[in-house]
């Protein structure tokens, strides 16, 4: 039986944080909440504009017949019709120089994220780019358990045209042994 693994999104302040297990989507917008409807929470075009950060984790609720979960990779696997002017995604995902994030006291922000300071990968990384217990070589060997935090943020500019951006696909990949 495969392990039971889903993504979680956490919102709110550190003291009042709320975890949403297995959100239906990871839509970006101008509100710190899961499963955003973009039309309801659009991002205003502006210089150095940003959506609220997404604080996500890979959550293993049961190992099933597996003994190890590891090798987590996260990337944009499909850009749809490509980027609009001034549009981009940032993340804390790195294949070297990895730093484990801690959930911020104030929770996710919609100003330029100091945690998501890397360009979001647009191709499958050659190695893991999200750690477990602070290490890219880390492994989950018991359940329930989590990966480290994955911090994502959508960035726009004052030149980003009005209307919807192109749909993109975010892939979360992990291995079971």
């Amino acid at each position, binding site marked *: 039986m*495969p392990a039971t*693994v*889903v*993504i979680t999104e956490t919102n709110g302040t550190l003291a009042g944080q709320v975890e949403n297990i297995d959100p*239906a*989507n*990871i*839509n*970006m917008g101008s509100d710190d909440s899961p*499963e955003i*409807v*973009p039309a309801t929470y659009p991002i205003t075009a502006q210089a150095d504009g940003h959506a609220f950060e997404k604080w996500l984790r890979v959550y293993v609720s049961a190992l099933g*017949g*597996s003994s190890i979960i590891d*090798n987590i990779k996260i990337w944009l*696997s499909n850009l749809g019709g490509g980027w609009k002017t001034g549009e981009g995604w940032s993340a804390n995902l790195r294949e070297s120089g990895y730093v484990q994030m801690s959930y911020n006291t104030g929770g996710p922000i919609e100003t330029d994220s100091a945690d998501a300071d890397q360009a979001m990968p647009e191709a499958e990384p*050659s190695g893991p780019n999200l750690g477990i217990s602070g290490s890219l070589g880390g492994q989950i060997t018991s359940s329930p358990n989590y990966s480290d935090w994955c911090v994502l943020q959508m960035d726009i500019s004052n030149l980003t045209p009005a209307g*919807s*951006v192109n*749909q*993109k*696909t*975010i*892939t*979360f*990949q*992990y*291995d*079971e*042994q």
Partner: protein
Amino acid sequence: MGGASAPLILYKERRDMDNVHEIIITTREDSNNPRVVQFRDLFALREQITSMMYIWNTNCYYVDVVSQTFIVNGGRKIQFSNFEACKVLYRRRTQLKYTTNSEGEPETVLTWLIGLEEIGTKRMVLLIVSDNGVVWQWANKL
């Protein structure tokens, strides 16, 4: 990895008459009755496997887990630079694909990987099975 009785287990993927993939696997199980399993079931047998043979059209790749040998087409042995310590690798790989600006559930894509990796180097022989078919390749370690 001591020797043991080894019933035959077959996995077959026949896509058309000109492109046949077949994986023949032996295990330590007590039963001597050959049986057919799906590749996803191999995960549960990963500690039991004693040999694997992959046949693709006229090519044959054979891994003997017990003696730690890998043979191509019945003769040419893959030359590991350090063949003292190899182990068989099994992994079930899952991709959760989320589409933005969407209210739909994420798509789940499964891949099964089975291979012989060489301890102390970055290379391995890897069999990848997915909905797209079967690929056998030299690869960097996962």
